């Protein structure tokens, strides 16, 4: 339901041009926080865990990596455990653990004596059935092309989906997550309305669909609600509730993943 609220505003903006300008906001500095981002998928190993730190808003987008962390990835269903190795600064790589639906994975991270743990269960895969294109009239009243992902939601199970788009090898920084709370058992055609980038016929689109667990859905749903371009009507911003215990930001997700490459038409 992200789009309609924006549309309401757009209608009002038809007659009255909103003025937009970059401003200086004096924001407080904050002690760097640990950010952990870990994934296990049903795709081929290795899997990666990235650990970095926050920076002040005014700093450049260079996030200091956290090196020399002790990172343990465990498949609690079959007991296989990996001591992950640091492939490059802040990026830790798995060795033996494989990604299997219905398995529950645990991540244990130790940084300077502090412990962080997270659990995630990989859901059953739902097949991405089709990717089509539709036209819509965007916020600024321009005709835009958007992708529509089609898939059959399995009835009787709570499913959570995450989608992302890469156009001409560039990730579009928009968050798309949905749950089947109101769509259980339906054939879902999910339009991906872009706020941050547009594509044209002939572009190469890679559409990725992940089946994620409930915690990860909540994490990204909350992140989406406070994300920059949705801020007109958004909730009071807060840090999304993470599944990592111990006081770190970020998430640890075991999910299935599927990619479709298609030329935009």
């Amino acid at each position: 339901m992200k789009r309609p609220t924006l549309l309401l505003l757009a209608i009002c903006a038809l007659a009255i041009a909103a003025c937009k300008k970059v401003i200086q906001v004096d924001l407080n500095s904050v002690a760097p926080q640990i950010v952990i981002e870990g994934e296990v998928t049903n795709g081929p190993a290795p899997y990666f865990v990235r650990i970095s730190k926050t920076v002040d808003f005014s700093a450049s987008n260079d996030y200091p990596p956290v090196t020399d962390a002790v990172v343990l990835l465990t498949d609690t269903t079959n007991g296989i455990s990996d001591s992950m190795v640091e492939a490059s600064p802040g990026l830790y790589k798995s060795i033996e653990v494989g990604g299997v639906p219905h398995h529950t994975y645990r991540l244990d991270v130790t940084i300077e004596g502090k412990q962080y743990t997270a659990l995630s269960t990989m859901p059953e895969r739902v097949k991405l059935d089709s990717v089509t294109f539709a036209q819509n009239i965007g916020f600024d009243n321009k005709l835009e092309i958007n992708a529509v992902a089609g898939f059959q939601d399995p009835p009787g199970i709570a499913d959570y989906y995450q989608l992302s788009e890469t156009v001409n090898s560039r990730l579009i920084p928009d968050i798309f997550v949905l749950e089947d709370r109101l769509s259980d058992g339906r054939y879902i055609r999910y339009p991906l309305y872009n706020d941050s980038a547009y594509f044209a016929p002939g572009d190469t689109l890679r559409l990725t669909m992940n089946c994620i667990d409930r915690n990860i859905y909540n994490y990204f749903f909350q992140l989406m609600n406070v994300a920059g371009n949705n801020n007109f009507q958004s909730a009071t911003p807060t840090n999304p509730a993470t599944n990592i215990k111990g006081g770190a930001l970020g998430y640890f997700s075991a999910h299935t993943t599927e990619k479709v490459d298609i030329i935009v038409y």
Partner: protein
Amino acid sequence: MIRVTLLLLLSSIGVNVSAQTHFTVSGTIRDKKTGEILIGASVSLLEIPRSGIASNAYGFYSISAPPGKYTLLVSFSGYEPDSIPVRLDQNIGLPVDLATAGGALTEVVVSAQKKNENVTRALMGVQKLTTREIRNVPVLFGEKDVLKTIQLLPGIQFAGDGNSGFYVRGGGLDQNLILLDEATVYNPSHLLGFFSTFNSDAIKDITVYKGGMPAEYGGRLSSVVDIKMNDGNNKEYHFGGGIGLISTRLNAEGPIVKDRGSFSISGRRTYADVFLKISPDSSVNQNSVYFYDLNIKANYRFDENNRVYLSGYFGRDNLSFANTFGIDYGNATGTARWNHVFNSRLFSNTSLIYSKYSYKIKINSANNDIGFTSNIRDVNLKEDLQYFVDAGNKIDFGFSVIHHAMAPGIISASPGSSFNPLTLQNKYSLENALYISHEWSPSDRWHLNYGLRASYFLVLGPGKFYTYDSSGNTKDSTQYNSGSIVTTYTNPEPRASLSFQINQTSSLKISYNRNSQVLHLLSNSTSSNPTDLWIPSSNNVKPEIADQESIGYFRNLRDDRYEFSVEAYYKSMQNQIDYRNGAELIANENVESQLLFGKGRAYGLELFLKKKAGKFTGWISYTLSRTELKIDGINRNNWYPAKQDRTHDVSLVGIYQASPKWTLSATWVYYTGSAVTFPNGKYQVGGMTAFYYTERNAYRMPAYHRMDVAATLQGKKKKKFESSWTFSVYNLYGRENAYSIIFQNDPDDPSKTQAVQYALFRFVPSVTYNFKF
């Protein structure tokens, strides 16, 4: 226990009454020319100074005194005062018709009050405006608007551009009870808040109670906005209207039976959509955006003791976007009233009130045809009685029963759609109240108004009621049958105000009141939406309660030409509502699991100086205030500033009658930016920049300020035809007031982030032509 107290109170007063023989003079006060009843006219006996009362909402007055010869004084500003000799040797019925004061000048800013009533009455925290007063105050698109104008008064704060909601003394948007001829208006805005639902052509006056609420009102924590519609002229027919850039208005009024009954009809419609349709651009001409509304009122007087009123409102907004998205929403209200004078001392009004708010959303995209509807419907029976005991001694009592039926959401979906059809269960409840209050002047200097409102709320079946654990997961559920009682809440709400008149021109007042609120508006977005969800209190959501103490000093200067007041208030609030992270309020049967509860406190100081007479009139209002919340689960359970927390809030209104033809006016507002949460740091997840937040609402939007000006040119008066042109500019100096500030990656330099401010209106000029015949 409450019932016993009420009985005791009543009987003690009863004893008092029978002690002495009194006779009564009573009647209705009307405008001589139009027959329109005059609300709040001052009536007193010259010989008994403390006998002064104001005519009630139906123009009725009653004064009792020992037998003797008296002079009845009747005054109402904008009208010639009248004095009538009265010999009280029996009860007398005495209707009074007042003539309007000559000369246009006196009409410019008039107050529907006795000149020094602000000083003498016990009530405090009350502001009253008539449509005549707001006529010259400039507003957006030149669309006169009572709700916008009251936001220029102290303690009543504008919620921001594109928002007709307002905050009263730190209360939320849903804590204002907005009544149109007694019917609750659930969504008082058109076009997402740019206009209010109240067509000023149809409105007689508006009274705002922000503290010291009379016991007759209840149901909301912060304020009561009581709006009354015009009755219509009962002598002759009149037509009027206006043509503006945004809308056209038309109204008609006239007698049904001369001197006995009248009607008034007002309608308006916007026509921006007509221009959209002529656009050759297909992406524009498929859009639609309009609203219309209609106010109808009729009344008929059977005899001096019986009169009936029927009034209704219907309004609808329709917004749609390129056939892919559409929403229409609106209110409908209806009020049937019967005034009955039992005897010269006992006045009764019985009302049957209906109110409905509904919206409907349609979305068509990628084979997803879905509809979403929701509505709230009230049926209310209300009885108000006024017993005029003797001079300076009046009792108000009555009851109200409201049946609420809410349909939180119905989803309809085409077979090929991505969504399942769904009907959320309806919510039923009964909101009851019993009240009594006593207005009493023990001496010329002391005026007292005290009372009790007892509210009794019943949550009714049928339905499944859930309980939740502390993290919002469903713990248990119970099925209730139709008509069974799920839970009840009883709230005694004592109210009292006391004023001490220091001298003819100044007084000191204190008041205390408790209010409770059983309906709550859920919205987890930063601005109000037509789709915001009303929910009743339930087994999980307790009624909100507020206790407010206030103290004030009132002073009139220069022969009542200037009015000055200073009021301070402290309000503590219980059972306030906030939301969990990522709360899902849309089509959620378990919406109550998404809520967090806590307490609030608000305090402030309000200064008000008004010039009421002369060529130049207007006012200055200043509010210094703080509003904070402490909610379990938010901001580490520490106090944080509420969104509506405003340190400083200033309004200036000036109206200058330059010549008999030209009236110039200007307003200027300034307020501290609202409290917002900004990021302190940033990090990367999923290849995207995310922001790190520390404290809730620790930052401020930039200060808001704006000046609006208007000039009204009175056309030549022909026989019966009057016309005027109003030219106005909203945001004269083009201040870019921040509507929203967003944080994002710099599109030109991906290694940086930036803050971008969006502003809405800069210089909105408008012109309106009004006519009347």
